[in-house]
Structures are given as C-alpha cells and as structure tokens.
C-alpha cells in the first residue's frame, strides 16, 4: 500500500520538483520518501507540502549539528587556553571534544590530565557555553524556526488531507444510508 502511494506521489512530484538541495548524504531523499509513503491520497499540493516539510526536517538536523559543533569548538578553545605549558599537551579539535563527551573515556582522561588540577571537561563546557551564548542562542532560533515551519506546513497538509478524509467519510456515510434505505425498501415477499 505504502509502496504504491510512494510511487504515485513520486510520479506527481517529479515534474513539479522545487527543492534541489546539495545533499550528497541522501538524507533529504530518505526523509521525503518516508513522508510521501505516509500520505493517504497524494495530490499536487500535498506532495508539494511534503517536499517543503522534508526540507525543513533536513535543515533542522543541520542546525542541531551546528549547535553542537559551536559548543564543541568553544570547549576546544577553552581547553586550549587552560592547558598551559609547551610540549606537555596536544591541541584538541572539536571532533576530539565530541568524542570525549560521547564514549571515549581514554581521550576524556587524557584531556583532563592536560587541563591540570582544579579543571574538568564539564567545567570547560560550562565556560564555553557562557562564552558562545550569543551564537548558541541564534542556533536555537534557527532550530525553532525550522520547527515552526514544519508545524505550519503540517497544518496546511492536515487541512487538505482532512478535507479529503471528510469527503471520504461523507461518501461512506451516504453509501451506508443508501444501503439502509435499500434494505428498508427491499420486500422479500414481492420476489
């Protein structure tokens, strides 16, 4: 069922495609396919709205990554500033900081050793947060905007789909009433 819907939706979308993202990872396409296969009755407008929603989801993910990157970059700078002395430490990149916060306990230990007594990686992150508060706030605004975009477009999509569903339900009800009427009118004695 969903495969058929996807096929039909893609058929509608192909000639009217509006989003051409530079996305070698193929994330956008997979989000779009998921959304399209969930459509009940794909038509031009619903497919078009799905495309815009998929794009917003794609940007939402990018901006969440950006926010984390800003924080990691700032933490790396704080670590660099606190681990003094020449030759005793190495420079840590934002990727190293991200790894240390995720699972790499060895790397975390190494960073904290370089930081010296009285400093922890969590403390550095807190300092970095204060230092880059302005950019983090903007990143939050970007994330919030994408969320609102999705909500607005979804409302539009719901209103079209709802209209279709109401019509479908009304058709079914009319058919049900017709069947009942026929059942009342049907007189087996006449047969």
């Amino acid at each position, binding site marked *: 069922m969903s495969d058929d819907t996807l096929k039909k939706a893609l058929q509608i979308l192909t000639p*009217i495609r509006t*989003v051409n993202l530079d996305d070698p990872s193929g994330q956008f396409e997979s989000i779009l396919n998921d959304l399209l296969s969930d459509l009940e009755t794909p038509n031009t407008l619903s497919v078009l709205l799905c495309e815009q929603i998929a794009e917003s989801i794609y940007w939402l993910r990018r901006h969440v990554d950006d926010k984390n990157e800003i924080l990691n970059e700032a933490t790396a700078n704080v670590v660099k500033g606190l681990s003094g002395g020449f030759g005793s430490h190495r420079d840590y990149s934002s990727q190293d900081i991200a790894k240390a916060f995720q699972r790499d306990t060895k790397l975390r230990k190494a960073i904290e050793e370089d930081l010296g007594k009285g400093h922890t990686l969590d403390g550095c992150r807190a300092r970095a947060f204060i230092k880059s508060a302005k950019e983090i706030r903007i990143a939050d605004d970007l994330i919030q905007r994408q969320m609102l975009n999705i909500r*607005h477009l979804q409302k539009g999509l719901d209103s079209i789909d709802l209209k279709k569903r109401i019509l479908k339900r009304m058709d079914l009800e009319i058919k049900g009433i017709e069947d009942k009427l026929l059942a009342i009118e049907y007189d087996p004695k006449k047969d």
Partner: protein
Amino acid sequence: MTQRRTDANRVNASKSTGPKSRGGKSKSSKNAIKHGLNQAIDEGSIDPILYQSLIDDGLSGDEALMIVMAIGDYRRVMEAWEYEYHQPKKVYGGLESQLMRAIEFDKREPNPIYSEKYIKTVERYWAIANRQNQRIGGTVRQRVKRLGKMIRYQRRSVNRIKKLVVGLQK
C-alpha cells in the same frame, strides 16, 4: 561650510544629471536592493507545470496562482538560505601584504629574516590575525550568524503558504 557654499551645492545638485533613459532609470531603481527577498514574485516567472497541475487537481485559477506565487516566494528564501549555509569561511585577510609592508629589511644585516626586528613584527601580526580570527569565529559560527539574519524572511513566506492552504478548506 558657509551658507553661500551650501546654497551653491543645492543649486548644483538640482542640476545633477540622474538617469535619463528608461533603461537607466530601471537600473538605478534597483540600486537600493540588497537581496530582493522582500520583493513580490513576478507573475511571469511562475512555474506553468505546477500551476497546471494545481488546476487539474480542482483549484480555481486564482487559488492556483496564489499558491504557486507563495511557493515561489518560499523557494526563493530557501535557496538564499542554502547559499548562505554553504558560503566559505572568512578569515582575517591582508595579513601577508600588511606584513610585507611593515617589514623593512635591514640591508646591513647579513641574514635579515633572522633579525630581532623581523621576528617581533611577525609575532605581532600573528597575534593580530589570531585575535581577529577568534573574533570572526569558525565556519559554523559565521554561518549561524548569517542565517540568523534571514529567519524573518522564512517566517513571512511560510505563514503565507499556511494561510493560503488552510484558507482553501473554507
């Protein structure tokens, strides 16, 4: 500036030759445009295939036209968004040329590149560049700042789409 000079400037300005031809006037009318995201979408630039498909789906001509224009407006904003996202990182520029201008090689030095003066100048400029680059920020910080300025255009265009599509039900 004296009053006489001010009056003379006013008279001269009134004689100033602005654009005369229709093309010139059209060009100069665009002088103040920065990005054009606030401009109305030209009806001539709408996608005829999209318009026709909406009509085929049962929308009236006016409804289809309004929706295509709203989508066009939103696409324009989103394309600008993607363009800004992929802009390359800016770094503190002109360092090398500044450095070359600042360094005056001492001809009497047998090896001026190792002179104390040279080393100090390089150190000073290196510190300036580091400071400036920290202020400007990395790629991500720069793009977040750039995109932050464009939020309001997205808000306006997406609201327009929502209003139109929800209005179709009524």
